[in-house]
């Protein structure tokens, strides 16, 4: 028994020394370092890798917004936090820019506390001024701000637009923006878009289905698989992560943060694919050698 154990130990040592075994167990610190370099390089020196064809979902939301008549009311639900901002904020800025160009009336709203600063940031980037200081604030743009209790809070707002009576800055909601709306409910909106890492289903469940408002999204890539369940029956389209944002920036011919980040995104993916291939070569080679030895 003792001798047998020794043989097993010796085989284990030999196995651990083999290059195929080492390939499979590279210290993760090196992988992180490679990723850091691969991401930093194209940010410092852009390569200009092609983005490929614009996806159907991005084209869908772009075309839908393009075909809305001037002055249509678009609700922007900025439900994002720092975890999703890097990939969803560029898309939000691009869509707001496009809406401003088309002359739509925009409502900003969030059901997450962390969404508040991103409303301001997107408006600043698209309008060039602070949202509250814009001359059209109150007539073309309004910021409802944060309503607590997530979808329950949103349901209250959808059933009665004057649920909070004031906007995020304390102005009376009854004065200008909502003056000419017929029902003063969410049914008056022409389109709703949710942004961030919250699930996509909520806007379909609480806005599209009960109020008949078509909805889209600018969602974190990790949640895109859930959103496809509603496409194309219940949504004309949505932006998937940073790539969706980059596609939208190209469609409106205003390349920005997302397009600039796509080189880094592509190279990072390429390096991950290469590492997965190397790891698999190591695994299969080690397995083949193991079998040969037996």
């Amino acid at each position: 028994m003792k001798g047998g154990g020794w043989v097993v130990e010796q085989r284990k040592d030999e196995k651990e020394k083999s290059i195929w075994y080492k390939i499979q167990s590279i210290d993760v610190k090196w992988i992180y370092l490679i990723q850091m370099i691969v991401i930093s390089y194209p940010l410092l020196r852009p390569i200009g890798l092609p983005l490929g064809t614009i996806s159907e979902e991005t084209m869908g939301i772009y075309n839908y917004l393009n075909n809305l008549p001037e002055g249509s009311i678009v609700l922007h639900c900025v439900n994002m936090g720092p975890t999703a901002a890097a990939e969803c904020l560029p898309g939000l800025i691009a869509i707001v820019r496009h809406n401003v160009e088309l002359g739509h009336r925009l409502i900003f709203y969030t059901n997450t506390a962390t969404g508040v600063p991103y409303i301001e940031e997107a408006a600043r980037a698209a309008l060039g001024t602070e949202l509250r200081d814009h001359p059209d604030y109150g007539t073309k743009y309004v910021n409802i701000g944060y309503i607590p209790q997530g979808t329950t809070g949103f349901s209250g707002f959808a059933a009665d637009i004057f649920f909070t009576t004031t906007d995020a800055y304390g102005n009376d909601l009854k004065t200008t923006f909502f003056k000419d709306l017929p029902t003063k409910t969410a049914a008056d909106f022409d389109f709703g878009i949710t942004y961030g890492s919250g699930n996509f289903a909520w806007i379909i469940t609480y806005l599209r289905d009960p109020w008949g408002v078509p909805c889209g999204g600018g969602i974190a890539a990790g949640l895109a698989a859930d959103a496809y369940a509603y496409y194309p029956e219940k949504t004309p389209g949505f932006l998937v992560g940073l790539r969706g944002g980059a596609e939208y920036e190209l469609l409106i011919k205003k390349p920005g943060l997302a397009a600039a980040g796509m080189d880094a995104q592509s190279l990072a993916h390429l390096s991950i694919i290469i590492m997965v291939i190397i790891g698999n070569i190591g695994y299969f080679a080690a397995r083949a050698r193991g079998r040969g030895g037996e």
Partner: protein
Amino acid sequence: MSMVEVEILVTLSAAAITLALFSYLWRENLAFRIAEHAYIGSAVGYGALITAEGAKRVLMPKLEKGEYIWLLTVLVGLLYLGFFARKWFFLYRYPISIVMASGMGVYIARGVKTNLIGHALNTIMIKDWQTALLAVGVICGLFYFYSTAEHKGPMVYMSKVGRWFLMAAFGAQMGLHVMARTSLVIGRIRFLLFEYPAYYLIPVAFILVAAGIVWDYMKKK
């Protein structure tokens, strides 16, 4: 302190916290722990403040109209404080159950129609080969989790096909998650490389990590 100085200080703090959190990639360390606690603390503080402001915006107009019945919601909210005392802990269950019940009520009214009936209808309405494939995937995927009877005959093949569909779905989900996490790193690296004066902290962080690695090595020896 001028506005510009405040902005510089904020950017430097953000860069320091980002680098301290990244330092976890080397190993768990004091800088990471400080940044982690500061992040959680500030997130909770910010969330509490914004939520209180939001609640005030919803409540105040009703009180101004003389609808004092809404003050009950504040009382129910205060019951959450029962969490901190063993004697009054039971009170904490009331607001929790009210929030859960109202959330469930709103969801059942809307969610069942959209996410259960809606999805089921869309699955069985076969229009083209893609929707047919989807239907096959859903049915076989459900068979994979069916444990009431032993998998025999055609059920074996169906659950195998279901497993392949599930693995394809998990693979797609994983790929999208990698894309999402890479975007996060891109966002932080972009901030560190281009935001003034964040990039001044990069060499400082490298020197500190290098010193840490040397310290570890010396200790090992």
